[in-house]
């Protein structure tokens, strides 16, 4: 569906006028003179990046746990318990099954009376009600930025945006293979997708730790509108 554009020609005409020239219809993206962002953590190995990520998490109120695919179900269950248990909401994502979490999420937890709700686009607003009542939201990081301790999440009809914001606590599963130095690499990855004809997700979240504010006397308060606690579970062999 095409959106509308109003009042553009006069508006842009004024700009060109002020700049003392005709409208420009094509501009090549310049080869920039400076590229300091390329130097950050240049050449670092995944292990080195993991160490950077670990350290950074301690600075952004985020608990990071390192585990393997085999131990992941247990670690996830422990993490959920550590923040007070369910109800849980998760994305609908085949990777949960691929990561070996199918049984935990679909059988073990429900059997232990922990509600696990999987995002279901057919249920519309009910999803949001569930997210609002949830104690834990579980998502999977697409790209993980070592320098800042950031996870990157793409939205879709099966991966609701609000799972990262409404539940009280957030747990993100981070495959070690997704770790890159910083947003520079994430930007390149996304532009590559666009070049290959893929559509940019309508919402991309770069999330670093829990929500916070320093609006009151510059005093940092953790846990404002978004989640109050953040956990990353880094899986070494994924």
């Amino acid at each position: 569906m095409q959106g509308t554009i109003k009042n553009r020609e006069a508006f842009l005409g004024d700009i060109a006028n002020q700049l003392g020239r005709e409208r420009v219809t094509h501009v090549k993206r310049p080869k920039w003179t400076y590229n300091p962002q390329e130097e950050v953590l240049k050449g670092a190995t995944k292990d080195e990046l993991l160490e950077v990520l670990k350290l950074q998490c301690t600075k952004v109120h985020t608990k990071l746990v390192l585990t393997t695919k085999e131990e992941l179900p247990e670690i996830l269950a422990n993490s959920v318990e550590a923040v007070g248990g369910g109800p849980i909401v998760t994305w609908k994502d085949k990777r949960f099954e691929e990561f070996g979490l199918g049984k935990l999420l679909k059988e073990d937890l429900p059997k232990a009376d922990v509600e696990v709700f999987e995002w279901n686009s057919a249920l519309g607003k009910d999803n949001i009600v569930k997210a609002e009542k949830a104690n834990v939201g579980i998502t999977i990081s697409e790209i993980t930025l070592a320098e800042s301790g950031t996870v990157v999440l793409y939205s879709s009809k099966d991966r609701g945006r609000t799972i990262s914001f409404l539940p009280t606590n957030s747990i993100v599963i981070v495959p070690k293979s997704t770790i890159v130095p910083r947003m520079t690499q994430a930007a390149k990855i996304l532009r590559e997708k666009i070049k290959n004809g893929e559509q940019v997700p309508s919402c991309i979240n770069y999330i670093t730790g829990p929500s916070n504010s320093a609006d009151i006397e510059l005093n940092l308060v953790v846990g404002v509108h978004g989640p109050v606690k953040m956990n990353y579970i880094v899986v070494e062999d994924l």
Partner: protein
Amino acid sequence: MSMKTSSEKFKVRVKNQIQDSFMRGAVASAQETIQGRKQTVTDELGNWEEWRNHGEEIRKHVLENLDYYLYVLSENVAKRGGHVFFAKTAEEAGQYITDIAKKNQAKKVVKAKSMVTEEISLNEKLEAIGCEVIETDLGEYILQLDDHDPPSHIVVPALHKNKEQIRDVFAEKLDYKNTEKPEELALFARQTLRQDYLTADLGITGCNFAVAETGSITLVTNEGNADLVAALPKTQVVVMGMERIVPTFEEMEVLVGMLTRSAVGQKLTSYITTLTGPRDEGDVDGPEEFHLVIVDNGRSNILGTEFQSALQCIRCAACINVCPVYRHVGGHSYGSIYPGPIGVVLTPLLGGYDDYKELPYASTLCSACTDACPVKIPLHELILKHRQVIVEKEGKAPFSEKILMKTIGMGTSSPTLYKMASKMAPALTKPLSTDDHITKGVGLLKEWTDIRDLPAPNKERFRDWFKNRPKGGKE
């Protein structure tokens, strides 16, 4: 509110603000804290100058090609089903947005922090058609509750309020019963606002950076409020100053990181979000209807002038955080939602000189701001340019000052006149002096001598000593 926040005279505002000891302590302490954090997090990079150069080249390039990038942005937003409205004036923007509210029968509006929406008095316009407008940024929420107290800083708007004052506002307006501890105040705001997000009809955000290549807008927060404002209501309106745009995600990420480091000393804030159009087919959250309102409101008049670099601003407040004048007079003294050095530069450009003619003189041109700016806006030079414009083009300088400056200009260009005047000076100022100091100045000098002594002119000028001493000056 609009850009203008006060109808009191400048000198009166300054006098009152100087007496607000809480504000002054808070501002001084905030400057020290944020400066320190910015220093740490930019030192870590090891080559901050290179980053500044890169930031500058990106912003300069975009401004020089602004019509092109806005064109591409609008095409790409529309391709994804978003609606784009180019608003030349504040009125046009307000009209378009209130029309959307009416069309959607919106009763409750939630907002994330946006300076440009304050500039165009958006809240008042929505309230005038019967909408309830709720600011969700904690600082803005506090100020809104407190009878629309204007912001005093562009990043930490409620800096001038202490926690006791905030507790009292919550108690009076929301029946808050807990203590002044920030954690409790914030938790209360979280609980109260949560319901507002879920029941709002319309969400309004600003835009830190629009990305032309993908038709995306970028939001930068620590609280997560902008994300809820964008994800829950059925209709979303994004309001952006027309210059807040970059070519691709690659430039966006450079500038976002520089913004967060400069503004709050963080590598990244908790939530950086790019939104591209309304929700996709089948999505459950995200807006069904998405509008991008691109606002000019006087910005195009700055293009093609000596002030063009002012539009490079990424609204990080680094200049505000180092300004010695701001430290002592606080944000409200400027009478504008944009305080500090960037406020001094931008406000007269957007609002004219009549209401803001003192601002360019509220500076010692110390250039701490120019040094601090991540995108290298020559702020102190632009402040001086305003003075030149006021004197030459606007003809708004006080008559007595013009005469004085003309006289000084003449006197200092003529060695003969100068020699005469400087020889007479000691005798002329003797009546005003005590010992070697002038303690009671007249006219302009009185401002000086009210708080300082002034050395009396030396009886023997340096040039006379030099002329009269034995050649070579050997002892």
